[in-house]
Structures are given as structure tokens and as C-alpha cells.
């Protein structure tokens, strides 16, 4: 499934341009060290973590995109950092459980 499709189906707000690519699974975490240790390339990272190091970890692991739950929004500096690294950042007012449920409903595993 493509990132753009997921963004459209869930009505996610695009905080950066969408760098469209295939999504391979989902990882939910707010811990930088956990993301580095356990997230997989191509995963959609669902988090409430808006620190610059969330982008640093997402980039290191090569996740597909970051979905910020509960309406979280990083600073403009962090968004610029993500865009330079071609990491898509999306936002939703849904909480992490609701995001996970909706991702499952649309077929992501």
C-alpha cells in the first residue's frame, strides 16, 4: 500500500510534502532508542514524539513516514529537517490506538 493512499484514506494532515512510497508495516513508539532498535525500514512510525531526534531516528532507520497522533505538531525547524531528509510528516487528531485501528482496517499489517 502506498503512503499517499493511506494519507488520503485516514484524512491525515500533511505537514511536509508526501514522499510517496510503499509502506511495509507499522511501528508505534514514543522512544527514540526503541525506534532505532526495533522499527524497520518502510514502517509507518506512529508517535506523539515531536522532538528533532524523532526525525533523526526515523531517518536513520529509513521509516516510510511519521504519523503524529493527538494533533501533535513539531516546530517549523523540525519540519524543515524532515523535509530535507525526505521524511514525510503527517498529523491527525486521533490517538495512537485509533490510528492503529484505522491502519488495520485499511489493510496494513
Amino acid at each position, binding site marked *: 500500500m502506498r503512503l499517499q493512499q493511506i494519507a488520503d484514506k485516514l484524512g491525515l494532515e500533511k505537514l511536509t510534502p508526501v514522499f510517496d512510497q510503499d509502506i*511495509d508495516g507499522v511501528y508505534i513508539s514514543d522512544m527514540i532508542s526503541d525506534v532505532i532498535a526495533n522499527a524497520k525500514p518502510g514502517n509507518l512510525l506512529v508517535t506523539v514524539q515531536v522532538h528533532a531526534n524523532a526525525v533523526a531516528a526515523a531517518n536513520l532507520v529509513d521509516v516510510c513516514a511519521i504519523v503524529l497522533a493527538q494533533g501533535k505538531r513539531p516546530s517549523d525547524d523540525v519540519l524543515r529537517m524532515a523535509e*530535507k*531528509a525526505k521524511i514525510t510528516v503527517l498529523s491527525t487528531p486521533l490517538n495512537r490506538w485509533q490510528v492503529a485501528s484505522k491502519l488495520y482496517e485499511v489493510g496494513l499489517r
Partner: protein
Amino acid sequence: MREVSAPRYQLVDSVPGFVVVERAAPSNQARCYFCTEATAPKEAYREGDQEWHFEEAAQSFQFSVRDNATGEVLRFHELLGLLYYACLEPGSQLRRIGEVAQSVGVSIYIAITYDSPDGTPCEVAASKLEWLNRAFNDRIRTPGKKILILPDLFGIQKQVSSGQIMLDFSLTTMTERSDSVA
């Protein structure tokens, strides 16, 4: 889902723990160590003429890298964490180098190490850094993207705050609060 071949170099044997920052009185010297206890120890202790006090702790992990072709495993016990170039001060030399590298798809990270007993930063051997770079680059699937992890030849470790390194300081604070309620 697309089939992805197994990478040759792989992070393995992940051990969760804490990076503990402590400070000595009266010298005001600071140092860090990795701790695998359930909670970070906070008791002050005396070492020679210095008394060491807990300052802060961050959740982190230590790991090894395995060469799946040979089965050889290298442990990265000297590695405190990685520092992303974009988390450095705007205008700093390394940040400017990082911006140039990023413009051609190369993301620079600096390997920040623990101090050795004499207070100087530990070194990550060049051969180990090569493995670390390959472990992260082997699994990248975005075309044209590269990760470049450099040794701290710039003395960055002494210039940055712990919050700039890729560690979980804020979440440790939450852990401590829940511990204190219990």
C-alpha cells in the same frame, strides 16, 4: 508486501538500559555510564576526594552488530549514542558540512562515546564504524539515500548537551515520576 533480502550486517543482542549522567563535587566534572538495572541508581558515592552525584538519566540501549556472512559479532559498548548533524547549532562547521551532504542524500551522524577512566572519550575503531555504517546502510530501501556515521574527530561530545544526542531523556523523567508515586 515486497520481498527484502536479509542484510549482511545486522543489529543484534539489543540490551535496554539507562545512560546515567553524574557530576562530581567539588570538581564539577561530569561523566556518563551505561546501566542495565531496572531503575537508574541515584545514590551519591565517594571516589577518592570526589563525591559523585546523579544528574540525569536517559533510556537507551546497547547492541552488537553481526556479520551474517561469517557469524562474527562486534559489541558497541563504547557507543553512548548518535548525534544527527541537524541537531547541532545552526552555523557550526559540522552542521554546514551536514547540510551539504544532506543535499546529495547523505545523512551525517556522529558516534558519541563514553569517556574512558582517564576522562578522554573512548574511540570507536575504524573497522567497527565500518560495520555500523554497513548495518544501517544495508537495510535502507529509499533509492539514493545513505547514512554516514563518523567518529567524533571534532570534539563534539564536549560541546553538546545530552539532549541533543539521540537518547530518551524526557521519557526517563516520566518513569521516575511513576516510580515515586508507587
